[in-house]
């Protein structure tokens, strides 16, 4: 029994070390996928809470966490995962409460709005590639899609985001 307890303690401290090293960065990653900072923190905390319970069955915790964060963020937005064209038409009447955490920084708000207008996969690909710094192969693995799909999503997402950034110049 003592050995079992000891093992459990080690697992918790493993996860805690990972948490201390990765929490801020993963909150940043999640923030790119959801509408505000509080939701991003909750997504990452939930992912770590699951990891803490399943440590033994998770072979590659860093990749597992990223998949969990992306899936949980998508779960939150699932009910609004739809036609962005329609959203733009409806926006004057249905402005979401997003980005309150960005304060009055108009450039950041514009980037966040442009990100939000992207399909979820494109957004996730851009966040993993260019914020998280993953390779195309690593991004593909986290998202459970092919490297070719990652290339396509990144290309389209970059074009859309670059166009939005161009407007800011």
């Amino acid at each position, binding site marked *: 029994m003592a050995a079992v307890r000891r093992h459990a303690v080690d697992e918790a401290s493993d996860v805690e070390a990972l948490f201390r090293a990765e929490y801020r960065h993963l909150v940043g990653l999640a923030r790119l996928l959801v509408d505000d900072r509080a939701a991003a923190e909750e997504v*990452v905390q939930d992912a770590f809470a699951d990891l803490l319970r399943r440590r033994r069955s998770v072979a590659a915790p860093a990749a597992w966490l990223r998949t969990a964060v992306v*899936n949980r963020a998508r779960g939150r937005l699932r009910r609004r*995962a739809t036609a962005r064209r329609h959203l733009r038409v409806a926006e004057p009447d249905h402005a979401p*409460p997003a980005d309150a955490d960005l304060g009055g920084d108009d450039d950041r708000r514009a980037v966040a709005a442009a990100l939000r207008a992207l399909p979820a996969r494109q957004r996730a690909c851009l966040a993993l590639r260019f914020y998280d710094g993953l390779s195309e192969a690593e991004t593909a693995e986290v998202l459970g899609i092919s490297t070719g799909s990652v290339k396509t999503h990144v290309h389209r997402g970059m074009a859309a985001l*670059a166009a939005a950034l161009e407007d800011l110049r």
Partner: protein
Amino acid sequence: MNDHWSTEAREARVRAALRGVAEAGPVPDVGGAWEEVRRRAAERGLRRLLVAGAGLAGAAALVVGAVVLAGEDPAEDVAVGPAAGTERPATTDPMAATAPPPTIVGVPEHPLVVVTPDRRALAVHDAVTGARGPTLLEVGPGERIEDPHLSAGGRVLYTVVRGGTATIGGVLLDGTTSAADPSVREEARSPAEHGGLVAYVSGGQIRLADERGEPVAELAWPDGPDRTLDDLAFSPDGTRLAFTSRGRAYVVPTDAASLAEATDLGPLAAPSWRADGRLLALAAAGPVLVDVEAVEAAPFGPLPIDVAALATADALYALDAGGTVWRDDVALPVRAAEFAVPPPA
């Protein structure tokens, strides 16, 4: 566009822009957040062990619990929709400014069952006027209601999630419970009902039970449990069941031996049957109408809103991304996290 930017310069600009959004605001309190993680893990672990180990004693219960925990993917939480705290503040809600205070009515002729935006109550509204009818259920702090389903017999089935553990329940439209409410003893969610047959998701399988919750059949994928099964919906004639799994929608005969007999309809969410036997569903680019026999989807709409969920009964109902319920092209003074209408006649 942007041809005058080199790829490198463009990537650098995108990196900087993403970092600006990702890292805006105060630095997170890592110590406090870790305490929160431990609290959440303990709460979920305990609940799961209790459920998985029900009826078993001591070590056996722990073993079963461990198996349940170990077999899971990093799949999304059973939670769906906007989380508490991300709802629009009431003061900036145009509906809140213009909607009259709700008038409480009896059970309406055209019932619309909604999970309130905070997911703490299940309420009936009049689908024509939006007037508020009876409140069917209220849950406590730390609990939330999901997956409302309204059967032809006027029974409302729902999922209650507490600390990551889901159970299903039933209540009649007038707020009373009947003797035949499902008393499923295992973890279960996403209930649907047709003609006395209840379907729900449990243990990574679809289970079919009689209206008292006695198991009748199980439908599983040949390669094992699937924690992403969701959105169950019986066809109007009750012979088929639509469901979603890993981002795709499927239809399977209710008398199938396993989900190997399911027809893959493509990357779709939130399937809902129409009286003509076709399925309404949400594709990435918007709502589609699916011919289940031909496995062909045609764009549906365009609707003047960002649709988050669709259903048909006596009219076309939609939930928009802001949480407002629409009946055809009229916005009702009703806000919801999810909704249910009676099955099409």
